[in-house]
C-alpha cells in the first residue's frame, strides 16, 4: 500500500490561511490502514482545527467527509453537489488523491493533509516500512524476493557495499542491509551460487527517470 504520515497541524493551518469554509476529505484505502488519513484521522484533524479557530475567535466552518477512494472518478464525484459550499479542501489522501481531487474541482484549492512517504507494508501496528519504488521493471526474481532498489540506501544491484556491518546499513544501525537479507534468502533457497552472476546495468527509463509514466491496457479499456 501507499504509506503516508501526518503533517504537522501548524503546517496545515499555515496552508489554510484565511479560508472560512473547509472540507476535510479522508480516504478509506491505504491512508486508513496506515492511520494517517482515514475517517478517524479526519475527525481528529477537524476537531483540532475547530479548537484552534475557536481560540483564534475566527468563525471557520469545518466539515468532514471520507470517500471510499480519492484516486477514482467514481468516488470523487460523490461530493460534486456540495463542493461549492467550501472555499478549500484538505485532502488526507495520498498525493495521488490530492492531485486527482484538485484536477476534478479545478476552482477549489485542495491542500495536502499528509506527507506521502512510500509503498510499503505494515510490520506491526504503528510501524510501516518501504518495500517498493515502482521502478517499472521488477528484478525480485533475481534477488531472492528482496528489493535492493527500495531497500538499499545506494540501490546497488551487485551488493553489499563495503559499509555493511553486522548485517546493518552504514547509514543507520537500525536499518538492515538489503544485501544481507538477499544473501540469507538465496542461501535458504539453496541458490547462493546465483550471487556471482553479475547484475547488468538497469534500464531506468521505466523508472521516474523516464518521465511521468502510464500503464495502458487496451484489453480492459471500455
Amino acid at each position, binding site marked *: 500500500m501507499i504509506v503516508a504520515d501526518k503533517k504537522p497541524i501548524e503546517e496545515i493551518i499555515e496552508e489554510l490561511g484565511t479560508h472560512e469554509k473547509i472540507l476535510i476529505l479522508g480516504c478509506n484505502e491505504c491512508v486508513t490502514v496506515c492511520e494517517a488519513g482515514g475517517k478517524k484521522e479526519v475527525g481528529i484533524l477537524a476537531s483540532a482545527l475547530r479548537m484552534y479557530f475557536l481560540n483564534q475567535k475566527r468563525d471557520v466552518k469545518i466539515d468532514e467527509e471520507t470517500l471510499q477512494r480519492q484516486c477514482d472518478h467514481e468516488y470523487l464525484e460523490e461530493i460534486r453537489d456540495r463542493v461549492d459550499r467550501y472555499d478549500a479542501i484538505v485532502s488526507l489522501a495520498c498525493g495521488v488523491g490530492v492531485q486527482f481531487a484538485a484536477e476534478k474541482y479545478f476552482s477549489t484549492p485542495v491542500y495536502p493533509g499528509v506527507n506521502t512517504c512510500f509503498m510499503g507494508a505494515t510490520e506491526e501496528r504503528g510501524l510501516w516500512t518501504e518495500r517498493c519504488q515502482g521502478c517499472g521493471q521488477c528484478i525480485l526474481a533475481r534477488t531472492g524476493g528482496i528489493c535492493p532498489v527500495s531497500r538499499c540506501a545506494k540501490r546497488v544491484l551487485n551488493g553489499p557495499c563495503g559499509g555493511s556491518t553486522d548485517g546493518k546499513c552504514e547509514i543507520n544501525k537500525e536499518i538492515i542491509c538489503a544485501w*544481507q537479507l538477499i*544473501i540469507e534468502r538465496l542461501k535458504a533457497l539453496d541458490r*547462493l551460487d546465483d550471487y556471482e552472476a553479475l547484475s547488468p546495468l538497469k534500464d531506468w527509463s521505466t523508472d521516474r527517470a523516464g518521465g511521468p509514466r502510464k500503464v495502458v491496457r487496451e484489453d480492459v479499456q471500455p
Partner: protein
Amino acid sequence: MKANTSSRLKKVLSAGHLAVTSECGPPRGSDPEVIVKKANLIKDHVDAVNITDNQTSVTRMCSLAACIRLKIMGLDPVLQMVTRDRNRIALQSDILGAASFDISNVLCLSGDHQSFGDCAQGQNVHDIDSMQLIQMVRHMRDDGKFLGGDDIKRPPQMFVGAAANPFADPFEIRIPRLAKKIKAGAEFIQTQCIYNLDKFEAWMKLARDRGLHEQIYILAGMTPMKSAGMAKYMKNRVPGMDVPDALVKRLSDTPKEKQAEEGIKICIEDIQRLKEVDGISGFHVMAIEWEEMVPEIVEKAGLYPRPEIK
C-alpha cells in the same frame, strides 16, 4: 590484462615487483598547491597516487582535476570514481576527460552515503553500481564503445581497479564478491585498511584456493595509527573496519607522546609480515593527513627504492 596502457602501476605489477601506492585527499578549496605539496612528499616513494573522490561525502576539489595536476607533475595518478554523484553520462564523460590527459588508472567505488557528508539533504544518483562501473570502463576500453553502442574515437586506456573489504559482512560472500569483481573486469584491488592480519591472511588463503590471486593484483591497504584514540575510533566508529583489541592495547600501553611512533612501527611490521604472503602484489599506504610519513614507512618496510620503469 591485455590493454596497452601508460600506467606505471600496471608496468610495475606486471614486471613482478611489489607495487606501492598511496593516496592524497584533495583540498576543500581551489588552491592547487595543496595537492602539489602532498604529492611532492610522497612522489619518490610510490608508483602511483590515488586521488579520492569527495571521500566521506564531504565536498572537495574534484578527483579528476587533482589527477590532472599530478599527471602534469609526471606522476601516475589513480582516479577514484564513485557512483554516488554521477550518472552513466557523466561517468563516461569524465573517463574520456581523464583519458585525454592519459590518466591511466581508475578505481571504481560506490562511495560513502551522502548522509555522512556536508550535503546530507542532497539526492544520490547510483545509476550504476561499482561493479557495473568496472564493466563500463572495460567496455569503453576493450570494445572501444560507449554504453549506447557508438564507437569511441581514441578509447580510454585505463588500468581498472576496485576496492575489497576482507572484513565486511557477511564474510561468506567476501571471496565470491572478489570473484565477481574479477568477472566484471577488475585488474587490481586495493583493500580496506588491514589491522587484523590473521583474518586477512585467512581471506588471502581462500582467494588462493580459488586461484583468484593469479587473476588480479591484490594491494594490501595499510593505514598507520596516529594514536590509541584513532585506533579506538577506527574500531568503534568506522563501518567495515576490524581493529583487534591487542592493537588498541599496544597503543594504549604506549606513552602518549610515543604513540605515533609506535603506530608507524606497527605499520612497518605489518607490511613486513604481509610481504611474505603469497598472492600479495603490493601495498596501498593510506597515511590519512599524514602523507609525510609515507617515505619512512616505505623505506623501513624495505620497499625503497622504487623500481625503474621504462
